């Protein structure tokens, strides 16, 4: 479906992509990971037809640069840094829906599912929204249009736990429809969303591997946590995850795809954890 053939990108004398060759097939949910400067964003921009480069990027045989209309109509994109647009949210959605020839109501529906009251924000300048609200709006635009290639740069970074759960559910609904490419600095952020990991380093593919595909993206885990003593920092961290409790006992819900990230957080406090129970409790049908 998507082919990168010996893609080289150089900025002045600095080689950012050094001959990347990749094949992405329908059904691939890819985590594109790597440190800053590894070449993730450059690779995405080549795929979006925004950068000139040596080598070829082809989407079903078409170059995104030469066939912008046909190729980009199939791509939903969520950037890492939302653009500082002064236009009202309603106008942004109107523009995106018009050029994508899609129904703006569908974008509004997704935004609503993510927990944003569209009527309240439709006249607000996009740039004035909070980070999470911007992210939800851009996700709504990307998921609310008929696209079979989804490209997301750190998409869930600013989302609250509830919005993350809905977001994962929305992704689950379309996971086999096409290609999903999610970039992140950290694998634990996106591990549960994907079935393939591509790690980039210094502009080349350092690792390209399949991963176990057993985590249900729509599941939720009930968690009961006992601590040997109360700890203010730990309590703050648990509150951010939406946990309820006080002192040494806490309870809360974890999104299935977030379990690795949650365990990563817990690992910082292993010395004071006296008991931990994680139980799958809910399964949503998208």
């Amino acid at each position, binding site marked *: 479906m998507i082919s990168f053939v010996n893609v080289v990108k150089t900025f002045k004398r600095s080689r950012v992509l050094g001959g990347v060759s990749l094949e992405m097939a329908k059904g691939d949910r890819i985590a594109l990971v790597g440190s800053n400067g590894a070449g993730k964003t450059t690779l995405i921009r080549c795929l979006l037809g925004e950068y000139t480069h040596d080598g070829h990027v082809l989407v079903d045989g078409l170059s995104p640069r030469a066939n912008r209309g046909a190729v980009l109509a199939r791509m939903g994109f969520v*950037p890492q840094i939302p653009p500082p647009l002064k236009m009202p949210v309603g106008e942004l959605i109107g523009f995106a829906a018009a050029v994508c020839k899609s129904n703006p109501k569908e974008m509004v529906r997704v935004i609503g599912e993510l927990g944003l009251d569209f009527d309240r924000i439709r006249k607000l300048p996009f740039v004035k929204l909070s980070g999470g609200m911007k992210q939800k709006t851009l996700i709504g635009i990307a998921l609310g249009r008929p696209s079979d290639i989804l490209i997301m740069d750190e998409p869930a970074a600013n989302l609250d736990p509830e919005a993350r759960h809905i977001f994962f559910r929305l992704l689950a609904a379309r996971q086999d429809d096409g290609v999903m490419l999610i970039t992140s600095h950290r694998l634990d952020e996106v591990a549960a969303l994907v079935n393939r990991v591509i790690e980039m380093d210094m502009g080349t593919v350092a690792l390209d591997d399949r991963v176990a595909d057993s985590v249900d993206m729509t599941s939720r885990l009930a968690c009961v946590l006992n601590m040997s003593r109360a700890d203010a920092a730990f309590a703050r961290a648990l509150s951010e995850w939406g946990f309820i409790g006080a002192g040494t006992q806490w309870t809360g819900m974890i999104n299935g795809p977030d379990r690795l990230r949650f365990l990563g957080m817990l690992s910082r406090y292993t010395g004071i954890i006296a008991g931990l129970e994680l139980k799958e409790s809910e399964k949503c049908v998208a």
Partner: protein
Amino acid sequence: MHAFFRAARLDIFESLRARWFAFYALVFGGIVVLLFVFGLTESRILGFTGLSRLLVTYIQLCVAILPIFVLITTVRSVAGDREAGVFEYMLSLPVGLAAWYWGKMVGRFTVVFLPVFLAMAGAGIWSEFSEIGVPWDLFAVYTGLLISLTWSFLGFGMLISAAARSSDVAQTGAFLLWLVLLLFLDLILLGVMVREQLPLEAVVAIALANPLQSFRTAAILLFDPQLVVLGPAAYVILDDLGRTGYLAFALVWPVALGTAAAGLGYHLFRRGDLP
């Protein structure tokens, strides 16, 4: 075409919300108000009175202010948008590059020209009501000249924005271009004439290739048909082109220059990295 109008509309509304636009509109509106308040329509210079007198001053102020305003706001907005990530997102949507670029230019033209025109039109309407004579034929030619000047500098602005990789570089480039064209109005040409003893026709041709000069000369020609203030250069202009011929040149040349600059900018934009 649909995407072109969408892009133009988007740029118009983005500009209308920007602070620079409020300031820009205030400057041109304020100039006209001040000219009225200070009684310029009552004064007389070289035989001009009423709205003609006001238009002479207004057009001189436009030569000084409009080009640098258009250049700086265009490069700040276009190169700034690219730097801030607006292009990265907006150009990930299936909008054609030609529709985006030319739509942006036409949208920008609308917002930079309208305040200048509306201020002048406001003065005309006010004069009509105040029973000060309004030279509508002059008004029409002035409007054409302003369109021409605005379009040419907008074209330069788009070219600089497409060529520069950062808004800082773009702003410096815009300022330098304005400075060079300003110097070419008098200082450099005067030096060339004195030192090199070039044929007068060549010097006049170089001078009139400068859209600032072609605009200014046309503005003078409207009120001074013999171009007395230009001295010997007047003979070259009037003998070779005549009054109508020169006015046609002054209307067409900056538009052609601006379009060529914008076209080159589009070529660079289309061939280079978009964000």
